[in-house]
């Protein structure tokens, strides 16, 4: 056996990795840019891609398919890694290739009209203001649970038209559907089942009583007489629930932490509102909500950056790493809201780039500055080293971020 001389600073998907994966990404980009390892679930041979250009290739080249159920090798499929396997989600927009994807994406995009997005701006503003009032009354609060979580779930609830009391249950079901712990794989189908069941209820509600919401728009979406059939509709709504629930919460949390860590950048954002939009792009680059894209699988044997991948190989594109690649971004570990460089891949890239990006940007542009504007002396309530991340390989989210407003609370 050849002795291995070098190791990444933290082994993949370990405690140290989750708390600070960046030294590992740096090592991988330099030493093993297409890195073979055993995925912890089912010990499936998997390749992790960390350089910006290679991540873009994986997300844009049709030989890297999103259809794990069609192209994934037996090992991958038998380990239960095909997303939504056995449910209507097997054909969801997130995991199909063209031409099926084109049709679903056209129908979905037809509901994101300018008028609807303008209407969402008022909704987001109102929800942010109400949530800030509540945080002011508390004086001390958790950015994750009491601000980012409330704003993201209230906005999603209004936009999709659902009742808020289901949100906690949904977050739990999403956790079940995407576990980090290999020991919990047997619960995955149950997680997807619960999400689909809720989407099914929501679709039935909106068929009976249509409202001014996205679910109702999807029920009626049609192009040249073509419409989503019932299963497609349920899968689409379920995909939107999954994609929109925890991601905005995670992103707002990461952004607030980054701005607390860089008060001069925060000050610049507040004093120069013309930077608001570039600040959100920079915060998405600096630490977005997703560590990685969803699995891709190779449709044939191919070579990527000098590494030969067999057909059916699972590939993970690491978005966080691509966004910190020094070959693409100058001083990538520095937060600079005036940065005007390459486009980040925080929303992914190519066919499956985030469908809800416009809404996520809108929420970020309103919710992030509003928090600091309302509470100029906002400060962390726990030492910096106690701020920790959840142990999930795909999502980059803080466990909690307790803060104080610095404004006395009236009894």
């Amino acid at each position, binding site marked *: 056996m050849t002795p291995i001389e070098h190791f990444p600073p933290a082994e993949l998907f370990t405690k140290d990795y989750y708390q600070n994966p960046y030294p590992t990404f740096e090592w991988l980009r330099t030493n093993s840019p297409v890195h073979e390892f055993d995925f912890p679930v089912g010990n499936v041979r998997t390749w992790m891609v960390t350089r910006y250009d290679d991540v*873009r290739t994986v*997300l*844009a080249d*049709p030989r890297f398919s999103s259809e794990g159920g069609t192209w994934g090798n037996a090992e991958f499929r038998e380990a239960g890694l095909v997303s939504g396997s056995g449910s209507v989600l097997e054909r969801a927009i997130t995991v199909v290739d*063209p031409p099926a994807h*084109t049709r679903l*994406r*056209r129908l979905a*995009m*037809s509901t994101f009209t*300018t008028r609807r997005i303008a209407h969402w701006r008022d909704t987001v503003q109102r929800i942010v203001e109400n949530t800030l009032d509540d945080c002011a009354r508390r004086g001390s609060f958790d950015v994750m649970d009491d601000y980012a979580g409330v704003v993201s779930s209230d906005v999603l609830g209004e936009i999709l038209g659902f009742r808020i009391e289901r949100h906690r249950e949904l977050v739990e079901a999403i956790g079940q559907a995407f576990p980090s712990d290999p020991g919990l794989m047997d619960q995955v189908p149950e997680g997807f089942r619960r999400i689909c069941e809720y989407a099914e209820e929501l679709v039935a509600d909106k068929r009976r009583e249509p409202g001014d919401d996205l679910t109702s728009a999807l029920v009626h979406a049609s*192009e040249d007489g073509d419409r989503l059939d019932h299963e497609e509709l349920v899968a689409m709504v379920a995909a939107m629930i999954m994609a929109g629930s925890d991601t905005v919460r995670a992103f707002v949390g990461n952004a607030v932490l980054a701005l607390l860590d860089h008060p001069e950048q925060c000050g610049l954002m507040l004093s120069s509102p013309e930077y608001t939009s570039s600040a959100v792009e920079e915060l998405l680059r600096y630490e977005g909500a997703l560590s990685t894209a969803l699995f891709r699988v190779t449709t044939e044997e191919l070579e990527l950056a000098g590494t030969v991948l067999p057909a059916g190989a699972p590939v993970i594109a690491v978005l966080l790493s691509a966004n910190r690649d020094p070959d693409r971004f100058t001083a990538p570990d520095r937060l600079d809201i005036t940065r005007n*460089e*390459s*486009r980040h891949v925080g*929303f992914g*890239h*190519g*066919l499956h*780039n*985030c*469908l809800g*990006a*416009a809404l996520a940007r809108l929420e970020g542009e309103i919710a992030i500055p509003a928090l600091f504007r309302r509470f100029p002396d906002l400060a962390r309530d726990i030492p910096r080293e106690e701020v920790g991340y959840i142990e999930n390989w795909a999502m980059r989210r803080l466990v909690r971020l307790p803060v104080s407003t610095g404004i006395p609370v009236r009894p």
Partner: protein
Amino acid sequence: MRATARVDRSLCQGAGLCEAMGPELFRIDEEGYSENSQRNITNEEKVLLLQDIADCCPTGAISVTVSEQD
């Protein structure tokens, strides 16, 4: 039938969907944004693909005009 596609660079956010759907029609430049523009496409399949791509663009940055004249 002739079709022309225009990319509005002020709306483009560089999602890369156009290039992924039609690499022969669109190219993403060095900065990561979609390059202008395709003129006088007459192949019917390509005209339909252009329309598909414009409909799928997440920022509505692509507009397609079709004229029936040859």
